[in-house]
């Protein structure tokens, strides 16, 4: 909470900055009372013209984090603490009125939802969907708009005929590219992409990633790119953040993280990348993913960690800068890593009010 830079909104090179962001699923309707701490104290920033990658295993909270920064919160998900600052607004995102927030979301952000390929409107042809999404925002005459759409599809290796199809007439990979096209068509300042390339073959995936990089260069957008596929990160992300159980456990320049992973979990992820030409039996990570409704005390990785020490069971390691641009939260990485207060937000009431 202390390091919120007052200048976040004013012309420094950070497009997005979150500080100690906490987003919980709180269910207290109809007698049930439960709290899933899916995002629990994440502080990070995204620089201008940067692609920031987020990786981590299933259900570690990647999508939830993204929802929180994309202002796509709805019950039972709640922001219980922390701040989200964008360079194009001069206040905490959650200090704004809901209407303002929605406006900002439409105006500046472009959000590719996870699995959005499955939620394309099944009774609308693709070109209608493009009109619904983009026509009003592009301020182009009809003919030019159509041409722009076609050109854009071309870049994603989609034939223009698909515009006249219904979603169920397209293959999974085609639908996924349609979603990418929808999100990048309007040249947004900030793109948030949640697992956008899972259903693509490697050739198309490579082209699509190249396209994304190109657009991002051309328009100077910044981007958060979420995927569990580390090889994709290796090829597209400038910096990489690794999440585990609702927390950021390591962050650094992609090359540094790959060359020198400091957190045992990151090391495991990188070591377990399957490669072609390899027929050794490989195992997944031992143990089960933590239950976020009742996360382990101390370092959340300790029940599965090969290096776990006594302190790990009780204390939560702080995300500490150990090398230039390289932060890690692990006691084994260095003695500089100190514990911070665990679990619950420090003063829940105060935070509530702040919001």
């Amino acid at each position, binding site marked *: 909470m202390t390091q919120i830079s007052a200048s976040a909104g004013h012309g420094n090179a950070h497009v997005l900055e979150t500080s100690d962001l906490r987003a919980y699923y709180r269910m207290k309707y109809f007698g049930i009372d439960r709290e899933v701490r899916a995002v629990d104290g994440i502080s990070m920033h995204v620089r201008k013209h940067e692609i920031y990658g987020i990786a981590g295993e299933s259900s570690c909270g990647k999508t939830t984090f993204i929802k929180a920064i994309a202002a796509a919160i709805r*019950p039972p998900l709640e922001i219980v603490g922390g701040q989200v600052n964008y360079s194009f607004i001069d206040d905490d995102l959650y200090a704004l009125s809901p209407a303002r927030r929605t406006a900002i979301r439409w105006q500046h952000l472009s959000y590719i939802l996870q699995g959005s390929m499955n939620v394309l*409107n*099944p*009774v609308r042809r693709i070109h209608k969907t493009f009109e619904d999404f983009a026509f009003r925002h592009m301020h182009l005459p009809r003919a030019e708009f159509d041409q722009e759409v076609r050109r854009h599809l071309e870049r994603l290796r989609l034939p223009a005929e698909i515009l006249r199809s219904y*979603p169920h007439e397209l293959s999974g990979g085609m639908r996924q590219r349609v979603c990418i096209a929808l999100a990048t068509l309007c040249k947004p300042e900030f793109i948030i992409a949640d697992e956008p390339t899972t259903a693509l073959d490697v050739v198309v995936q490579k082209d699509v990633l190249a396209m994304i990089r190109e657009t991002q260069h051309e328009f100077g957008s910044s981007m958060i790119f979420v995927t569990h596929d580390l090889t994709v990160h290796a090829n597209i992300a400038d910096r990489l953040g690794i999440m585990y159980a609702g927390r950021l456990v390591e962050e650094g320049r992609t090359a540094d993280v790959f060359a020198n992973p400091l957190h045992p979990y990151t090391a495991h992820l990188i070591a377990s990348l399957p490669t072609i030409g390899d027929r050794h039996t490989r195992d997944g990570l031992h143990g089960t993913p933590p239950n976020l409704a009742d996360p382990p005390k101390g370092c959340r990785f300790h029940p599965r960690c090969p290096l776990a020490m006594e302190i790990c069971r009780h204390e939560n390691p702080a995300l500490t800068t150990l090398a230039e641009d390289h932060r890690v939260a692990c006691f084994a990485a260095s003695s500089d890593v100190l514990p911070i207060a665990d679990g619950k937000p420090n003063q829940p009431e105060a935070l509530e009010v702040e919001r």
Partner: protein
Amino acid sequence: MIAVLRDLFRYNGEFAIGCVIMAIILGIAAASFFSPYEPIDSYLVALDAPPSLEYVFGTNSRGQDIFWQLTFAIRNTLAFGFIVALISRILSLVIGLISGYVGGIVDRILMSINDTFIVIPLFPLLVLLYFVLRDDMTWFVLALVMAGLGWAYDARLIRSVMISLRTREFTNTSVFSGMSMPRIVTQEHLPYVLPIVFSTFMNNMNWSIGLEVTLAVLGFTDVDTPTIGGMIFWANQHSAMVSGVWWWYFFPTLFVTLTFIGLFLLAISMNEYIDPRSRLDRMGNS
């Protein structure tokens, strides 16, 4: 079920207010069974008496007690809306389900019929029917006609939900679990469709009551069955506004508005409860 209602009442303001309003309305409708007068009898009480202790809502120029008159009117109007909504919901559910699940040529035929119904201009058609049928245009016939006209829009909605459900992967899982098609539709898909049916039920009641009132005010219905619209019609006939008998207008208008609000509140609060998305949110790891 009871627990759900209790929780709805406790946590959902709209639902509570809607319930209270509808309870009052239903109470008044129920009172009609204890009315000392027959609804169509006239010149039973003093004419044009303003609201007083004896005649709570006053009396009209036809010598009827407006309170008791209103009890019948509300009862008939509600029953009217209910019947229209019930029949048209059944129509739209059946047609939407079949069209969406079976698809292909069946879908195309049903949807072209459906689209015809959507574009038919309702009001002139009803007026025309009134002139054709005249005395045969009873309260019940009107209800049937309106039900026959009111299903189309929601059938299309249900169809599109069904189409998207059909393309969901869990439908295939159900097929390969050996479930039969009727079973898949009723057990796997209906939970997504019923909320639409419920919430459009209230909306459809509102729509049909509104239309009936409009028609009745203009005299295009069977004015001998007391309905809220019919009361306003008679008030117009007797130039009640000019002669200062405002209560003749006021109470029917008040109660029909209350009915609208009550139904509307129930529709949105039920919506929130039954909507599969919010239902998912509520299902915790209990």
